[in-house]
């Protein structure tokens, strides 16, 4: 493995088709009581999380929720105050180098060496990684429309982000740890990124995606974990979350809008003329009974979007909570 570190390995298409790891291997990521304290503040509080191999996990949370702290703990860049993290069964703190052979990381802010060109940067990072799919690197350079002959200092923010994305993806690592990887990318490049993540997923690579772009997470991820104030508040597939979340109901009345405030399970009532919008938690039967006797003209209901689920987890902190979700969104 030591030799592998020092030289760039060109993987043949056949060998590169699937990750080399055995299916009997442990989860790609496993944390137990992972905690990070800064003074009296818990940046991350007792995180228990498992990401199976081959899964794409969306990691959500507002600014300061602890997403980047989690990632830096997984990468061994900072030390946990308590608990542990494993990458493919390897301790992220004690077996860092071995763990890093299995992963690639893309940060949200690409602060690179300004005097190097893009090609030199890719060459260097590939050499340090010890594993590069050279043919795929060329594909990525074309896909992201990057001119690698330019010096890093001459790149725009978006182009620097493309460069660091290519550097992460070209290793074909078993685990991709992506921390807001599309910040600064235009919509076309965002599509190119999604395409690359789909490719990685097809190859069986595991992806840990921290993002603020909920549509991106909704499109790419098998499961979603939501973090709030350093605490994991929800984790599951979108359908599981939708099942447990409120239903959005919009009703149009012929006459005046009935009083829905006392209907069990109904929250976030918003009234606009003859139209009322609300959220329903649990059974819709009590609401339907009231609507049936109130001359309802039109009734629409839909499952919550990821954005609504996400906001629901932070609604308690919002000054407009319980008044009108649509306004908050």
């Amino acid at each position, binding site marked *: 493995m030591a030799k592998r*570190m*020092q030289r760039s390995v060109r993987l043949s298409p056949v060998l590169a088709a699937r990750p080399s790891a055995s299916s009997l291997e442990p989860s790609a990521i496993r944390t137990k009581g992972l905690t990070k304290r800064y003074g009296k503040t818990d940046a991350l509080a007792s995180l228990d999380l498992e990401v199976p191999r081959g899964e794409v996990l969306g990691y959500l949370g507002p600014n300061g929720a602890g997403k980047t702290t989690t990632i*830096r703990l997984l*990468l*061994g*860049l*900072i*030390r946990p105050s308590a608990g542990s993290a494993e990458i493919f069964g390897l301790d992220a703190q004690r077996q*860092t*180098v*071995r763990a*890093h*052979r299995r*992963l*690639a*990381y893309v*940060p949200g*802010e690409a*602060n*690179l*060496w*300004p*005097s*190097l*060109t893009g*090609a*030199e940067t890719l*060459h*260097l*990072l590939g*050499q*340090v*990684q*010890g594993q590069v799919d050279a043919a795929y690197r060329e594909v990525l350079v074309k896909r992201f429309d990057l*001119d*690698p*002959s*330019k*010096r890093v*200092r*001459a790149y725009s923010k978006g182009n620097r982000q493309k460069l*660091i994305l290519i*550097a992460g993806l070209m290793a074909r690592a078993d685990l991709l*740890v992506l921390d807001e990887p599309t910040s600064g990318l235009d919509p076309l490049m965002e599509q190119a990124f999604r395409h690359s993540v789909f490719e990685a997923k097809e190859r069986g690579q595991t992806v840990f995606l921290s993002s603020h772009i909920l549509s991106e997470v909704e499109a790419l991820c098998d499961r979603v974990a939501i973090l709030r104030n350093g605490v994991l508040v929800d984790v599951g597939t979108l359908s599981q979350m939708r099942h447990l979340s409120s239903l959005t109901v919009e009703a149009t009345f012929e006459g*005046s*809008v009935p*009083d829905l*405030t006392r209907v069990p399970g109904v929250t976030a*009532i*918003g*009234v606009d003329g003859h139209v009322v919008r609300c959220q329903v938690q649990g059974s819709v039967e009590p609401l339907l009974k009231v609507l049936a006797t109130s001359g309802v003209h039109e009734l629409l209901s839909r499952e919550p979007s990821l954005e609504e689920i996400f906001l629901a987890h932070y609604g308690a902190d919002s*000054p407009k909570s319980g*008044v*009108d979700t649509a*306004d908050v969104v």
Partner: protein
Amino acid sequence: MSSDQATQLAALTRPDPLQEATHPSAVGANPASVVRRLTGRKARRSGALWGLVFGIYVVSQVQAYISAYKTQGQRDALSKSFTSAGGLNALVGPAHELNTVAGYTEWKSVGILTVLGAVWALLLSTKLLRGEEDGGRWELLLAGHTTRRGAAVQAMSGLGEGLLALFVITAAATMAIGHLSTVRFAPAASVFFALTVVSGAALFLAAGALMSQLAASRRQAAAYGGGMLGLFFALRMLADANSGLSWLHWTTPFGWIEQLQPFTNAQPELLAPVVSLTAVMVVATVYFAGQRDLNASTLPDRSSSRAHNTLMSGNAGLTARLIRPTIIGWLGGVCAFGLLLGGSAKEAAQSLQSSPRVEETLRRLDGGGGEVKAYLGFSFLIITLLVALIAAGQVTAARREEATGRLDHLLVRPLSRRRWLLTRLGVAAAAIVVAGALGGVSAWLGVASQHVTISFSNLLGAGVNTMPAALFLLGVGALVWSITPRLASAAVYGILAWSFLVELLGGIVNSSHWLLDTSILHQLTPAPAVAPDWSTNVVMIVIGTVGTIAATLFFGRRDLAAE
């Protein structure tokens, strides 16, 4: 509609208290002067610090002269011995009226402090202008109540405040020491002297600001300015070394400043070309600031290049590639200084014999090679300082890699922290070894050019003797960085400044050996005057090595601290 719903609707239509609060209120300070205040605050702090260094230097030179040359006869002998000191003239400029305190202070201060001030000014102005722009902070300021040209004017004003701090403290120190009955500098002469020694700084503050507009990055701006400084200094040296080329004085600002002669033959009118050139560069700075795009250069920049992957094979290659320009600059400086030192040693050593105290010290140090050897023994302190500065710079560079987050890109790959740090320090140590050896070899070349017989091995040994202090500083600096990264730069430069100060003042006042022993420079014997103390050198290297090993352990146990 129920009363509850009416309440909810009323709540929706009521003006949002957050929106009500969005009317901005005026803050105390004028928003149009933010850039000046920000730049000024940093420049004043730096100017005051260097003003203290200048002041201490001037005071130490005066004290050194008074204590070394007590009688007028000794002073006259010193003055006479310097009539043909061509080599030394090239180094620090020609001497006038060396039989007076004023003449000696002028000779020992103007040449050295002018160059030191120019280096300070160049680094400060490129950092506060182009460095801020490279860091992306400039565009935040430009989005405020100013324009690109307005911001440049404000930044120049802020730099002016730093220059003022430098001038005031230097003038105050000169006036204070000049007040002594044994010195007697006229207050006006002291002020003009301070003006003279900071005029180089004024010129290079403007030069740095102009280069910040012409270059593509701070590093490039500093390199252009450094080239300009080197050229001006070389022209001044040529003019002073050869009387047939004295007309070259008029081609370089260092030549103009040298002829101001604040204490011996004051010519204030010669400030005019310095002020004019400074003004031209200030105007050019403001002009180009408005002409170019933000983050772009005025001069054509090679934004594209063919990949040079020879050194890009990993961490060691990257380190070598990143530090290459800086190290080449330092090695060039060490070589140039070694050559000058060797070339001027014969004349300088002869002239210093006019002081009984110095003569006695030289005799005591003389290990058989004569006064030249003894003089070199004293003067190698500067080469030791230059080599130690390489170590301090490399500790700071390691911290910068971490602070900018660039280190993350390497450590998230299969590269251990220990290996990264050891490689980085190993490359720095190699640079230190080369610098020390080059210092010895270049001094030997200088000495040989004057037909003085000092063996190559003797001077190479003196060069090697400069390394332990640097290796000690590298190890201890790395240890401090591994524990408290934010204090690393302050620690290494603080140790060096303290050591230099103790060396400077220790020779003047009768300091206790406890105080002298706190200086890392004092631990080294003054080779080639006496043989290097290899046992002490080994101890220093071992301490540096232990510091390095401890640093790898501590670095592996702390969080990375990006800013």
